[in-house]
């Protein structure tokens, strides 16, 4: 603050023309100091990576910037003017638009209505639909969203919905776009497309703050970075002058070592699961469902099988069909050679199959309920008395056992599971299934949205499970993850299996070409049409 007017860009860690300068920002929530003396400076036409593990304070900082929270102390300068946003609306008017992980679109309204929501062109009373469509198209063309502006958002893929969010930001003439983990739900090809859009924005003079857990994106895309840890500012600098190891060290405060060490492919046992000719057609009721066509695969005891593919390739749908969560039209499933058929997940569970679904919060957890309830909900047979009552002593022992086994960090088992960090939440879900001693465990996106430290822990857990004889099937959009943990990899594209490869023979490039087989690597995957 002392030398706010000092125009000395001699320090080359500072941006040349900064448009945003947050200094000494602190924020306290009841019981927790979320941010302490944090700095963030972003230059004009700069793509700035904001990095840190979960709980480092990134989200809180961004919420202060966007006006959703107010800081207890510190200053924010935008274009050299001190500002304090009371509401997100204030921030938007000043040119700062934040795109959160969970989109804020209205699914049953059109692209155009979502882009201009609350600011529809026309007179005071009536909306000019023609103008609305034209203005929307002008923006969506700029970012390569080739869709009729009157398409309902519900019918778009996740990646396209994200483009709608960006279009909305552009329609507000924003100067600084903040993106909170924009790539966590995207496939590699969609990420590449988003990256090129962000570069276009930069060339138009906009600045972008980019939060991600995937460090390779930082090096591909960003110019400068800022690292937070435990709510404190750790450092910032130019991406070109650093490397992955240095950034990880800053984020976790220690050497992680080789994140993904070399692991020999273990000997594996007999066939645990065999799926033959699994086929699932679209129905009139669900015209956007992803079809499965003649999917066959095999998983062995003690093996980690990877399922790789772009978003929409049918990996999750295959897993859900095997688990009995969705019906299928043709095909057979055999467990240890015995043919089985399931009416629902409980049948699959009785045969020793478990599924950790892709969206922890929506599909796996009861966020307001206690950790113990979440952990044991599928294991009531083990902890009940007379088949009716819950034996809380037995339950406590079970929770304790898995708390130690998976080193789940919690204050008490009676705490609501929603208060845990993403990594610990995922461990609770894994524990729920491990308690059932499954023969086959399907894990869909095991580390989505969790920090690097927990990621390594989850990977080691998956490897331990396989060692104990469980057939583990891992679905992941992150190829480094697939290559790190899986022994054998099956690739899928548009509902079909396109190939199979041993990990030792695979590289990211080989997998990518298998996942996009046939028509070559289209830069944007066609959505379900």
């Amino acid at each position: 603050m002392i030398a706010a007017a000092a125009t000395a860009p001699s320090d080359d860690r500072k941006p040349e023309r900064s448009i945003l300068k947050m200094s000494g920002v602190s924020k306290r929530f009841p019981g927790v100091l979320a941010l302490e003396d944090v700095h963030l400076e972003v230059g004009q036409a700069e793509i700035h990576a904001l990095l840190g593990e979960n709980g480092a304070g990134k989200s809180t900082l961004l919420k202060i910037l966007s006006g959703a929270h107010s800081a207890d102390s510190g200053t924010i300068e935008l274009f050299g003017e001190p500002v304090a946003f009371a509401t997100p609306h204030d921030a938007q008017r000043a040119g700062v638009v934040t795109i959160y992980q969970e989109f804020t679109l209205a699914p049953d309204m059109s692209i155009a209505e979502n882009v201009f929501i609350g600011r529809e062109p026309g007179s005071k009373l009536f909306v000019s639909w023609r103008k609305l469509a034209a203005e929307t198209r002008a923006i969506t063309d700029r970012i390569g969203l080739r869709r009729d502006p009157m398409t309902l958002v519900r019918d778009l893929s996740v990646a396209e919905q994200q483009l709608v969010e960006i279009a909305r930001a552009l329609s507000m003439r924003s100067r600084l776009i903040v993106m909170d983990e924009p790539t966590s739900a995207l496939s590699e090809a969609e990420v590449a497309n988003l990256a090129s859009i962000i570069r276009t924005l930069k060339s138009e003079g906009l600045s972008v703050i980019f939060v991600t857990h995937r460090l390779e994106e930082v090096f591909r895309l960003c110019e400068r970075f800022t690292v937070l840890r435990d709510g404190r500012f750790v450092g910032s600098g130019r991406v070109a002058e650093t490397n992955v190891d240095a950034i990880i060290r800053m984020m976790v405060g220690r050497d992680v070592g080789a994140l993904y060490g070399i692991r020999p492919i273990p000997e594996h046992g007999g066939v645990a699961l065999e799926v033959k000719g699994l086929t699932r057609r679209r129905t009139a009721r669900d015209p956007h469902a992803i079809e499965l066509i003649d999917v066959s695969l095999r998983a062995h005891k003690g093996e980690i099988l990877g399922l790789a593919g772009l978003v929409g390739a049918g990996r999750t749908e295959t897993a859900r069909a095997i688990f009995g969560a969705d019906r299928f039209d043709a095909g057979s499933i055999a467990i240890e050679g015995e043919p089985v058929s399931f009416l629902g997940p409980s049948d699959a569970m009785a045969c020793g199959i478990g599924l950790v679904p892709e969206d922890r919060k929506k599909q796996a957890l009861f966020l307001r309920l206690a950790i113990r309830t979440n952990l044991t909900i599928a294991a009531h047979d083990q902890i009940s008395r007379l088949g009716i009552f819950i034996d809380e002593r037995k339950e406590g022992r079970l929770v304790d056992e898995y708390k130690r086994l998976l080193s789940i960090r919690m204050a008490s088992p009676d705490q609501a599971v929603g208060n845990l960090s993403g990594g610990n939440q995922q461990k609770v879900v894994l524990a729920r299934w491990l308690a059932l001693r499954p023969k086959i465990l399907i894990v869909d996106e095991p580390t989505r949205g969790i920090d690097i430290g927990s990621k390594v822990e989850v990977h080691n857990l998956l490897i331990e499970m396989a060692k104990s004889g469980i057939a583990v099937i891992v679905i992941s959009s992150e190829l480094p993850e697939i290559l790190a943990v899986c022994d054998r990899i099956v690739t899928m594209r548009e509902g079909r299996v396109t190939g199979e490869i041993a990990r030792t023979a695979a590289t990211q490039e080989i997998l990518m070409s298998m996942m996009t087989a046939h028509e070559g690597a289209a830069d944007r995957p066609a959505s379900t049409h």
Partner: protein
Amino acid sequence: MTIAKTNAKLGEAGEARGVDVFGFVARFAPTIFLLVLMAMFAIIEPRFLSSINLFNVMRQVSITGLLAIGMTFVILTAGIDLSIGSLVALCGLVAAAVAKGGLQDRFTVGEGGLGYGWGLAALAAIAVGLACGYLQGLAITRLKVPPFVVTLGGMSAFRGAALLSAAGGPISGFEPSFTWWGQGKIAQQVPVPVIIFLSAAILAHVVLRYTRYGRQVYAVGGNPEAARLSGLNVNRVIASVYVIMGFFAGLGSFVLAARLNSAEAVAGTGYELTVIASVVIGGTSLFGGAGTIFGTVIGSILIGVLLNGLVLMNVSSYIQQIVIGVIIVLAVAFDTFAKSRRRRI
């Protein structure tokens, strides 16, 4: 490993400090509000605290309280049951018909239309309640019609059935052994309905808190998709709460008929409002997955005390309705506010 430890410490420090004043107040808000209200009435009107008046309040509360216990199960699954007022009327007429041996010459039961004792009357009322609840549960889970619509239909259909069978007139004058269940007292002071209400509350508390079934109700209400993927039979749990609601409607109708020594087709009109209000004021979330029987008991008593106090202060019954309406909205606003605050932390 150090960073993991500091992270854990930071997290635990924040979470372990559960003595967050706001959280405490939010949890016991209904109880605190009840005590404040009672203190207020006691100061304004000393008659309020007399044991006769207090037992009177409890007796008035006991029937809607019984229904509120069933409604707690329903609302915990993010459902609602608007049909209970009508169902109480229908079940009450069934109990009366079985006890009296017939309905106004329309049909007779028992030998020579002499009727049966209170036991069969109560069982018949409960059986009809269970059957109607099961029907609604089936419509919700099999036909995939939202609970609001199904029970709105039930509200109309059951009232129609009651009006049809009563042919417009009330049935009154039961055996003393029948009316004892609504008018009797134990130890010269404690009304029998109060004992029924509190025993049912204890039983329901045990079911929700200590059984597998109770856990399943919370899980299905908290996140039905996660419950299904954890192997729970979501449809069965949802249907079951309407059956439980039907049971309490049957039991409540019997106690009501016993207390009034009469059953009529317009009985229970407007009960759904009072009952839903009791549950919501007691802290059960309309979004499902959160709430307790203890809260519902407090919520029921709170409404009873409020009405009783207003009567003692000679406030018109029209104004009482306005007060109840405002309080429901405030209770839900409080729930939403508390939730948004939790999310911020």
